[in-house]
């Protein structure tokens, strides 16, 4: 791997940048691997990286149907935070946030983590109760969290309309200062490059069409580029989790929905933190390129099309203008959609499946990006040890039959 640094950049500049080589090899699939990972998105690539880095398992292929990092890691609103309510979630996302904090150095790839703070606004007395409850729980879970009253919100983010005349006035907000955003594409590329350098084969344009299963045990996969044998296969395909599971012969309690996001035209810096609101449903941050990055909830219908409907957009912009009246004359430059797999408790499914050797990681719903390193880390451990990582254990598939849910739906944590 060519090491990245200011010095390397300078040196290559002198050669007109002709000296840079591929960031990851153009791999041709071999006949067999120790582990095959289905899905070359953020979580799949992270899994491959940590398999190689932490467990010395390098005979690994990542099979991607389309282009690397082309799924939800390419189309999210880049928010990274860990202020979840439940212990299980807080532990997982905080583990992930800690990995984020060193990720650029670990990968030797600047993923542009920007810890500018995330505000989750509260607009009703019940939201205030829920928010404070989450802050108190976060604090005891070692997750940095503060409650700001209305005045505190105004000080932290003067742009927010805290006027009492707002239809649902801002009554306060939770603040996680270590939360923020990251450059989403770079995360995929950084993991790909780092995994590749440790020997992982990253194979694009290779769709897994079926699973070879003998006696309840997976032995390999069928792909559009031929059969590949592997004693361990891991499915990491956000948006198509249940489709893949069906090909392997089991069912998952997942619903796939479009989730849209949009950006404004680039403007000079004006908003320095991430602002999220559930009651006035919108969330917004400003990227390093100057665009306001805006999202809200899912389209309510099921779909595999990576686009959504206009009413979802118009309502979230109404919400945006309520909170930020000066944004009204800005313009929507681009609006896109991804597909999110939503589980009944809005928490992911990470771990073993009914088929031996076949592992599943998905159902991250609307909030998978922030978990990327943590998810890959615990999933790699789970695959390597054939036993769930302690942080992954609560997110097993069985919980939907036992009832041991990690229900972030009703809980105070907002979407994303």
């Amino acid at each position: 791997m060519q090491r990245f640094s200011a010095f390397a950049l300078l040196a290559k500049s002198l050669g007109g940048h002709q000296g840079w080589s591929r960031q990851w090899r153009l791999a041709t699939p071999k006949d067999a691997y120790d582990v095959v990972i289905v899905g070359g998105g953020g979580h799949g690539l992270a899994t491959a990286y940590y398999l190689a880095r932490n467990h010395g398992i390098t005979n690994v292929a990542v099979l991607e149907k389309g282009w690397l990092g082309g799924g939800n890691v390419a189309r999210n609103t880049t928010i990274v935070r860990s202020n979840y309510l439940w212990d299980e979630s807080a532990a997982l996302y905080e583990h992930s946030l800690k990995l984020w904090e060193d990720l650029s150095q670990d990968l030797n790839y600047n993923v542009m983590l920007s810890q500018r703070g995330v505000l989750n606004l509260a607009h009703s007395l019940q939201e205030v109760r829920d928010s404070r409850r989450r802050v108190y729980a976060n604090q005891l879970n070692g997750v940095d969290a503060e409650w700001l009253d209305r005045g505190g919100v105004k000080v932290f983010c003067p742009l927010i309309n805290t006027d009492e005349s707002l239809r649902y006035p801002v009554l306060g907000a939770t603040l996680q200062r270590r939360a923020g955003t990251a450059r989403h594409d770079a995360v995929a590329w950084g993991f790909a490059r780092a995994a590749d350098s440790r020997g992982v084969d990253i194979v694009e344009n290779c769709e897994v069409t079926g699973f070879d299963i003998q006696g309840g045990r997976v032995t390999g996969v069928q792909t559009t580029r031929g059969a590949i044998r592997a004693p361990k296969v891991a499915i990491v395909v956000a948006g198509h989790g249940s489709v893949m599971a069906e090909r392997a012969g089991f069912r998952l309690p997942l619903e796939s929905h479009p989730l849209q996001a949009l950006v404004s035209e680039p403007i000079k810096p004006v908003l320095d933190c991430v602002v999220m609101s559930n009651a006035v449903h919108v969330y917004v941050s400003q990227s390093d390129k100057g665009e306001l990055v805006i999202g809200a909830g899912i389209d309510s219908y099921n779909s595999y099309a990576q686009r959504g409907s206009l009413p979802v957009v118009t309502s979230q912009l109404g919400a945006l203008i309520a909170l930020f009246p000066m944004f009204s004359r800005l313009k929507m430059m681009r609006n896109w959609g991804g597909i999110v797999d939503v589980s009944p408790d809005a928490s992911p499914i990470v771990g073993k499946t009914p088929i031996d050797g076949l592992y599943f990681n998905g159902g991250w719903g609307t909030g998978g990006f922030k978990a990327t390193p943590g998810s890959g880390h615990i999933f790699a451990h789970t695959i390597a040890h054939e036993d769930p990582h302690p942080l992954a254990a609560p997110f097993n598939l069985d919980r939907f039959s036992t009832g041991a849910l990690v229900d972030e739906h009703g809980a105070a944590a907002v979407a994303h």
Partner: protein
Amino acid sequence: MTATRPANLRAPPVRARGGDWVDDTRPIAVSFDGRAYTGLAGDTLASALLANGVRVVGRSLKYHRPRGILSAGFEEPNALVQLGKGAHSEPNALATRVEIYDGMTATSVNRWPSLSHDVFAAFGLLARFMPAGFYYKTFLGSRVLWDRLYEPFLRRMAGFGRAPVGADPENYDQRHLQCDVLVVGGGVAGLASARAACASGARVVLIEDNPELAAGLAASPAKEWIDVAIGVVKQDATVLTRTTVFGAYDAGYFAALQRASDHLPQEARAGVRQRLWLIRAKQVVLATGAIERPLVFPNNDRPGVYLAGAARAYLDRFGVLVGRNVVAFTNNDETYATVIALKKAGAAIAAIVDVRANLTGGAVALAKHEGIRVLEGYVVVDVRGRSAVRGVTIAALDGGRREKIACDALLMSGGWSPAVHLFSQQGGKLIYDPGMAAFVPDRRPADPWCAGALCGETGVDAAITGGWRAGSSAATALGKPAPRGLTAELPDEPKGDAPLAFWRVPVAPSAERKCFIDFQNDSTLADVSLAVREGFTHPEHVKRYTLTGFGTDQGKTGNINALGNIAERTGGDLARLAPTTFRPPFLPVTFGALAGREKGALLDPVRVTALHDWHVAAGAAFENVGQWKRPWYYPKDGETLDQAVTRECLAVRNNVGILDASTLGKIEIVGADAAAFLNRVYTNAWSKLGVGRSRYGLMCREDGMLFDDGTTTRLAPDRFLMTTTTGNAAAVLDWLEEWLQTEWPDLKVYCTSVTDHWSTIALAGPRAREVLQCLAPGTALDAENFPFMSYQEVVVAGVAARVFRISFTGELSFEINVPWHDARHVWEAAITAGAAFGITPYGTEAMHVLRAEKGYPIIGQDTDGTVTPLDLGMAWAVSTKKDFLGKRSLARPDTARPDRKQFVGLLTSDPSRVIPEGAQIVSESNIADVRLPQSSPVPMEGHVTSSYFSAVLGRSIALALVRDGFRRTGETVYAVADGHAIAARIGPTVFYDPDGTRRDG
């Protein structure tokens, strides 16, 4: 068009007289960067500035290179300006689209301190150190420096214009429109389509982005046909101009933005600035035209380098010559007609440089006949002049001769890319047409219909023919008769030479840094080359790595050149590369227009009860509960919340209170199977509930978790009145309907929301009966005749009312339902009659305290979607015999665990301390580990859901969900919030009148 040689050629560009769109009798004064300029009515800001000799209008994003006007329309990547000031300001307006008006002020952006002297232009010198994605490879040494120095600097450099200061003073509107045939694009093809569809009798909507139909075609040989067509279409169709269809959605749904008054001076704008049209079309004809693309060569971004078609547009529409000594660089025939037009208008033509060799067609012959020097097989290899073109260097493609040619404008044309955006948004497939060197719609027999330049029908006659065919196809697909009579007799157009796909001028690698592909983002050929070298070969990867196509123009001019060069660099076939996904909007759309009227108070409807005005007059403070405004408390004489609530609570406990409970959801459930239905949706049994009796019910989701609760009364054998929580009323009705419609269609049950048919007035307190007796003198209200949990029809204050003896306070209580419009009368009668008994209106806060004293849970406050009825200690309300929604889930091993978090009461050791709601429960054995910040998690046993100071008890009380709580009665635990711990003892949830004698009496 009758452009003539201007009398006085000063600095180019200059205004030749006459332009289709401008009125040269009406000068308009505008200012740009503080300097005054005079344009003409009808000018765009760009044409006015060009006419005044302004060349540099902006700076590029990364290298801050001076940039001029490239295009004459929406594809413009360079000419972004800040329009207006203060709250009226608009960032990133395209000078090429902005229509000027008197007093317009515009300023350039992304430069400091001024456009001509921009200190950040120094980045141009550092360009070699800042290739695509350089930031991924550096700033890695120190997290602190990244946080404090590098990233803040990167952020400061980002963006173009500035957000306005203050709220938007203008209004936006939304309208819905339905039609048989929507025609997008009011050029010749669109006109022909609309005419054909109109002639079939279809309801037609024609939408054009420009202020006029058939923009810039006044000089066309088909002018007569066009004029007739415009007349007919304006009469027979709905024509929207200055309107952009920006989104194509499923099922014939289109969104368009109309710039209703942006072209007017501020003071002349009436009502609406922009209007969003939401259009449902049965058929659509896309006649969206094509976008000219630049050629890729060194310094192709210099001010004074124009798209050839733009030069033609500035001349035809505005009478502006972009140069007086012009070189054109092209790969296609269309540039020749432009050059000849410029020549006729008085420009000298230094040369036409054509990448093609051995040209034999009519266009070239005509140019040569005009005496124009045509250099075949030549390319431009450099442009001289930093802030204005001074000349070009040309070279033979075969590597032979080089020559410097002086000029003041360079026209370039790399051919035309059909504007396939809407076609693609709808899911249409594209195919590569080598003849056009472009991606075109893969036309299938099904809609949408395409016409004109969008599908390669260039030339007026082809556009008319194609447009007519598309329009009539759309109409006949709807069963309309085929239109008759396409009447356009047009001269044959000369046969030409085909364009040549040409993605870059071959240059040394070191010169690729100056070959711009995405002008706005400063993405160059070198960047694309580097991306491919580093393995980013998919167009989506190149886009994301180099930022090509990420600008406000979304790659309208640049993306195809990137694609062509990816194909060349990877040795691939362009036809096999897919363009990056076309996403809405086609052009940027104002947020305010998308939000429309859904802002301010209209963000969400405000619902108020029939008694709202009374509450306002009584000085109530209000709480938002769902969409409702509910009295929160009624402060008297400067009382605080706590003081008012204490007074209200004591009034209820000691005398009588009155509450507006109208917002509680009310659903009438009617039908032969009504009781059976309730049996399925409630956890408890309903079959045996007698007429006139009420029962408290709990509702679960499939997962066994509490969803809602309320009291339901049997009004008649086949008729129940269900009540729900205020916030959940709609969700409960949806829930009932979902089950009835999708799972149990066999049940004969009908559900009707009657929430705002009936106002609910609750009288609560030991003297409630006396107050009601005054209002209903003849009715026996004693416990024997009107027991707890029963219902009677009673005339109250002269109004036929439904009276329920139910209680949410634990006191003797009557809930009086009267028709909405009678509520004020009955309420005031109760206030009057109750005066003698100390009647006191109380709000939601007192209600919450009163119910907490009784341990009544509030679904959504004391529960959070993870609580079962059993967790609440309500096993008595969960039938073990019948089936109900959620029952199976309750049997799941984890859900049936005996040590789940359970609903308990907490009494603090210090009775004066009120625990903060949301505080986490920590057991005695772990409390020593609490210290903030917490390095490792402290086990949490639950949390405090409700917490108040109880005036009647003279101490604080709290309700909590605590792990294994039922078995921990008497244990002291700690409620922890913000690092503070409050000791409290676990006990029963009912703090007041545990036997219920007050309630039942």
